[in-house]
């Protein structure tokens, strides 16, 4: 090695300087270069830079977990008192009148679930169908137009959608479906479905994209039509990705506040009757947003709102956990993805 360096002389030194500069900039160590390095300080500097960058990335990665933990701790600190300030029978009762110490969260939890599930039931077929069309059927040019358009949909502010829902969707639901008022679970679900669609389409489309071409070829070679190939081979192969899309869409829907508050009517009734879909409901998010503004800090009501936050957090966590375990389970059993 030393002889090698002596032969190279000045040229080698310049190369080495450049290499370390490039290394510094890119944050990567070209392995071969590092091995030919004989200058000890150069090697250690490369290692040090690499170490620092690795450390920074690791720190950033872990800090995300840290933030989630801190948020959860804050939620717990502000929300837990409600679970011993108010008897559980009241807390999970059916009457939410916080001004009169009735903190029944049941209508709110069921309201949130009903609105979210309805939204997903509406958005899932539409989203998957769109994804299939974009990735499997549409010609190249149409795909180039559709993809950015779908991404633009995701950028519409929820207040705008809520305003639209309040002034156009709600009257239509009332006059066409004959509901007493248009501000219903269904109106909220429609708006939420619209908001979840871009997420579902993008993620599902990515999942369909990663299905190997050989699968399609094999399907067609077996004599299946294009439709049969898509429905029996490609979509099942991308199943876990589609499930992920649905879960992400659901996460978007359950946490949405503004549009839901403007459109669902905010009546804290238990939505268990058959016609609940076409009656108003009150969601957890809308309750927090509407009441947090004027609640006295540290009061029972204040703790109750944070308690709802905890319930919401747990619910979202449960959804994600279900999704993750479903995907994990499939992978272990030798699923396609």
């Amino acid at each position: 090695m030393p002889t090698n360096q002596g032969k190279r002389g000045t040229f080698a030194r310049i190369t080495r300087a450049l290499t370390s500069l490039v290394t510094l900039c890119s944050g990567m160590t070209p392995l071969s270069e590092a091995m030919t390095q004989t200058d000890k300080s150069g090697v250690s500097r490369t290692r040090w830079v690499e170490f620092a960058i690795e450390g920074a990335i690791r720190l950033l990665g872990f800090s995300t977990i840290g933030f989630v933990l801190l948020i959860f701790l804050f939620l717990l600190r502000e929300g837990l008192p409600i679970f011993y300030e108010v008897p559980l029978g009241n807390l999970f009762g059916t009457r939410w009148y916080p001004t009169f110490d009735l903190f029944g969260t049941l209508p709110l939890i069921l309201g949130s679930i009903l609105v979210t599930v309805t939204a997903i039931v509406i958005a899932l077929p539409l989203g998957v169908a769109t994804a299939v069309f974009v990735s499997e059927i549409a010609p190249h040019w149409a795909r180039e137009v559709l993809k950015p358009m779908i991404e633009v949909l995701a950028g519409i502010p929820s207040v705008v959608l809520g305003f639209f829902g309040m002034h156009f969707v709600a009257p239509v639901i009332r006059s066409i479906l004959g509901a007493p008022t248009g501000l219903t679970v269904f109106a909220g679900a429609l708006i939420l479905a619209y908001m979840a669609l871009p997420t579902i389409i993008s993620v599902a489309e990515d999942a369909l994209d990663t299905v190997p071409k050989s699968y399609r070829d094999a399907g067609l070679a077996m004599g299946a039509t294009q439709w049969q190939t898509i429905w029996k081979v490609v979509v099942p192969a991308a199943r876990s990705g589609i499930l992920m899309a649905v879960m992400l869409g659901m996460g978007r829907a359950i946490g949405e506040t503004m549009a839901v508050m403007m459109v669902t009517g905010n009546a804290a009734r238990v939505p268990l009757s058959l016609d609940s879909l076409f009656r108003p409901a009150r969601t957890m998010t809308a309750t927090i947003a509407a009441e947090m503004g004027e609640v006295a800090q540290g009061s029972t009501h204040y703790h109750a709102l944070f308690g709802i936050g905890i319930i919401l957090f747990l619910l979202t966590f449960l959804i994600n956990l279900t999704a993750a375990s479903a995907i994990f389970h499939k992978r272990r059993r030798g699923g396609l993805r």
Partner: protein
Amino acid sequence: MQDVVGRSSPTQYLRCGVDAASLPDASNGQGMCDFKPFWFPMLPEYVGLSANRCQGTACSCGICRWKTSTSIRKGVIGWVLLALVFLPAACEPERSASFNVGAAAQTIENKGSDTLVNLALAWAEVYMQAHPDVCISVTGGGTGTGIAAMINGTVSIANASRDMKKEEIAAAEANGIKPVGFVVARDAIAIVVNPSNPLQGLTLQQLSDIYTGRITNWQQVGGENRPIVLLSRESNSGTYVYFLENVIRMGKKESDLLFSPDTLLMPSSEGISTEVRQNPNAVGYDGLGYVTPDQKLLAVAKDLESPYVLPSIQTVNDGSYPIARPLYMYTAGEPTGKVRAYIDWILGGGQALVPKLGFVPLKP
């Protein structure tokens, strides 16, 4: 970051004719912002609940203005300052108020009921034109918010659309404050329906039955065969509590009637008027001052024997309209100096403004 904000502010106060030297150093403010989540008071604004009119002329001496100008002047650092300055934005008015209340009360901070906010703003504007040495800043946010701020000593006058609750008075006394209330105007709660609804009037008992869900069809009170859709303000609104106590419970203390769970809680007056305008099934209530001409007012009778009375300035004043209430301004202890003069003016000359905003003045 507080210091950056505080030390620059005296220049702003010079505009109001206050000697900058007489202002206490903001850095020893009373820690109002300690752990209060700064966005709480702002949240209602985002969701359209309150009318925070602090940017209006009534706040010409408010701190709102220099914040941006300073930041922009400082160029690149400005962006950093901008971020720092806007974070505690919600605390600022309170901070300034905390030393205004004690020493020379040049800025009168006035906060509370959303029902009163437009009226309070109008009073402030007119009064400041006549008295350039006084600055009045008016903020909405709700009765509860205003009273809490008065108890904490961050505002001089709290606007309230109801009496102070026992707990609030107890909290004030625990803080060494004896709140004093003044009736500054009267408000009538109007019952509104869609203009296509043929119904003319309801009794209080019928209203109570409608809002508790015992009557669910307009036919039962002599209207068309349509379901009734109940609209209400959110439960944090002073109007909500007033309506519950005086209409649903009909003023009976022992009654424990509540709004029907089917009641739609609308986040704003605008929400109510939109739904009433569109929906022939709907019935709503709101302050008389907020009823737009495209909603139909219902006449209300105290009981079956009494006459049906439409709400108007006259009927509220002579006491014939049954759902009317006084509006209050509360001060921490007997007001003195500028605050006293302001309240005296409101009770006297200021009353001329009241009818212009749809409220009812104390004297006809």
